């Protein structure tokens, strides 16, 4: 067991799957010699050769076409889309093709593709590099959408994603890449792709979050604890499907819930979670469902992004409002 950054944990998981399955392939823009613009795939080409880890021409739709075609010839592709904003260029490949292909063949062919892509605000990137675009993909049947919030889950989930025979969109948080370090086993382990996790137990209010907002929610929970408000924090980990069992069990205990996302409020993951709760658990609630989300503007110019991204203070304020309702 060693302390590892979030990004190193992903590299370690990729190393594991390349080692375990000779049919796995990593490809994308700059993933080869350069090891990715963030160095997520650093060293892997040297270790596994250019046949297994290789650069592609600069074209995201082509990268997805490659992934689908490679699946059709027995490979297990792990394409990287360099930034999530660039997935728009691969929208047909991911949504129109990959997600539907297993269905189209009546289940006779598998498309075990893991599309890795970094996203998330707070690092002052150029435009289209930080956007939270998960809602475009969570409304896509056939596609799993997951995002780890800590190094341990990052390694376990990338291994599960690659081993899954379903296509997976694996969202890696830019801000967490190097800001977060934790104990990560050297050996192989997996973390399920479809389960949320209670990351802090509590009894008074449930806070549901994912990715970088899990840390903000944990900070908020610390602040609330000072006033003897016991917050339970759930990390969704999987955005499609959503593990409602874990959320519902928590609500049965706390009877209050706040849902947190970094993405804009409109039609997002939080709205889906809120609808699920309203449908199944409204009688268990003794306050309205609270939501914390970014405002419905275009992703902000970098200089102002910290005014825009919901932070621990926003989560704490909303939790107090719901708790004292």
């Amino acid at each position, binding site marked *: 067991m060693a302390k590892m950054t979030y990004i190193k944990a992903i590299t370690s998981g990729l190393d594991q799957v390349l080692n375990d399955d000779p049919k796995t392939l990593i490809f994308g823009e700059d993933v080869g010699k350069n090891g990715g613009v963030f160095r997520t795939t650093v060293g892997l080409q040297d270790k596994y050769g250019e046949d297994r880890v290789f650069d592609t021409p600069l074209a995201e739709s*082509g990268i997805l076409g490659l992934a689908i075609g490679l699946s059709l010839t027995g490979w297990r592709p792990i394409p990287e889309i360099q930034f999530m904003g660039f997935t728009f260029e691969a929208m047909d490949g991911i949504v129109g093709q990959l997600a539907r292909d*297993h269905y189209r*063949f009546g289940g006779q062919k598998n498309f075990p593709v893991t599309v890795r892509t970094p996203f998330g605000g707070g690092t002052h990137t150029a435009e289209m590099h930080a956007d939270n675009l998960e809602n475009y993909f969570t409304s896509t049947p056939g596609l799993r959408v997951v995002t780890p919030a800590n190094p341990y889950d990052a390694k376990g989930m990338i291994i599960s994603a690659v081993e899954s025979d379903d296509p997976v969109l694996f969202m890696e948080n830019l801000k967490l890449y190097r800001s977060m370090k934790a104990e990560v086993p050297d050996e192989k382990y997996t973390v399920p792709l479809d389960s949320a996790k209670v990351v802090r137990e509590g009894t008074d209010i449930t806070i549901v979050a994912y990715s970088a907002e899990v840390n903000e929610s944990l900070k908020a929970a610390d602040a609330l604890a000072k006033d003897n408000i016991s917050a339970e924090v759930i990390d969704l980990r999987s955005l499609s499907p959503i593990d409602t069992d874990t959320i519902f069990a928590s609500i049965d205990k706390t009877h209050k819930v706040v849902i947190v996302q970094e993405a804009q409020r409109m039609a997002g993951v939080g709205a889906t979670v809120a609808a699920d709760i309203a449908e199944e658990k409204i009688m268990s609630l003794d306050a309205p469902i609270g939501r914390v989300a970014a405002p419905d503007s275009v992703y902000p110019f970098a200089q102002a992004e910290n005014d825009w991204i919901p932070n621990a203070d926003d989560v704490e304020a909303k939790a107090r409002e719901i708790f004292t309702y």
Partner: protein
Amino acid sequence: MANGSKQIVDFAKIKATMADPYKHPVQVIDREGTVVDPEILAKYSDDQLVDFMKKMVWERTLHEQTMNFSRQGRLGFYAPTAGEEASEMGSVTAFKEQDFLLPAYRDLPQMIQHGTTVAKGFLWSKGHVEGSQHPNPNMIFPQIIIGAQYVETAGVALGIKKNKDEDRVAFAYTGDGGTSQGDWYEGVNFASAFQAPAVFFVQNNGWAISVPRYKQTAAETLAQKAVAMGVPSVQVDGMDIVAVHEVAKAARDFAVAGNGPVVIETLTYRYGAHSSAGDDPSRYRTKEEEKPWFDADPLIRLRKVLTDKGIWSQDQEDKLVADYKDDFKQAMKEAEAAPAQKVSDFLKWTYNVPTPAVKKQIAEFEAKESK
């Protein structure tokens, strides 16, 4: 302003000459049925030529029968193929069963030739999952998003190369409009960058629904677009089945030998509507435009060559047409007997491992379906 008249570059000259390598589309039999390349024709036995003719009669009859079925409301979306028999049958017959076909929606005849049944072609048109499950697994469904088959072809071809399958290629089809898509360029370029074994066909039938070929691009030929990607290409008379077949075979040999992809533009014509779903060509083109293409018909010219050789007769053709029609009617009966589809199955095929929500929906639909 500089003095003197010397130009550092003559763009006008470059523009005027860039299509020069494509001035003479490959041809073996001309529109009058005259053999213009006897040396190439001599490579084909009488049996092979008769087989070409049979396949074109088969496809023309399939076209006519599907138009009947469409009028009777027995098919769904169907893209008519009359006029494109030489382009389609000449090309597909150059490939082997293990080659991987990535078709578009006008390519059901090639799919059937490559190893599926007519009934499955009809089922695809009618909207049934069995229409995407083929006896020969080396093909996918007809692509609807024009261009997507091209990027996927690059992937299949790279997979073939990585698998070290030495006698195998990927081959794909699109039309003239398809060459305007970004995916067209990405697909050809990726295959080229990886030197992967792919053969890309552009069936230039003059029309992308109502938009004529000349509005797609100012390039004089579509074939020359491949040059920019470092890919050799050729224009071939798409109404001449021998020429198409010969070119396709050469392309396959070239790709299999590890030389990378090839682009082939077949010059053909869509006699009918874009699809069976209400398109009316009289809205956008004239009879005067159509006439020379109808005269260039691929069946007429091969029929003349075979009749001159004394190896084809009208009686023989009429009998074939009758047999094929019977086959197609039988295939339609088979397609109509396919089991009803269930929403619970659609849900089961959405994921390998159903999500909790999907599991619940499967149970709900199974309960409804068992009533």
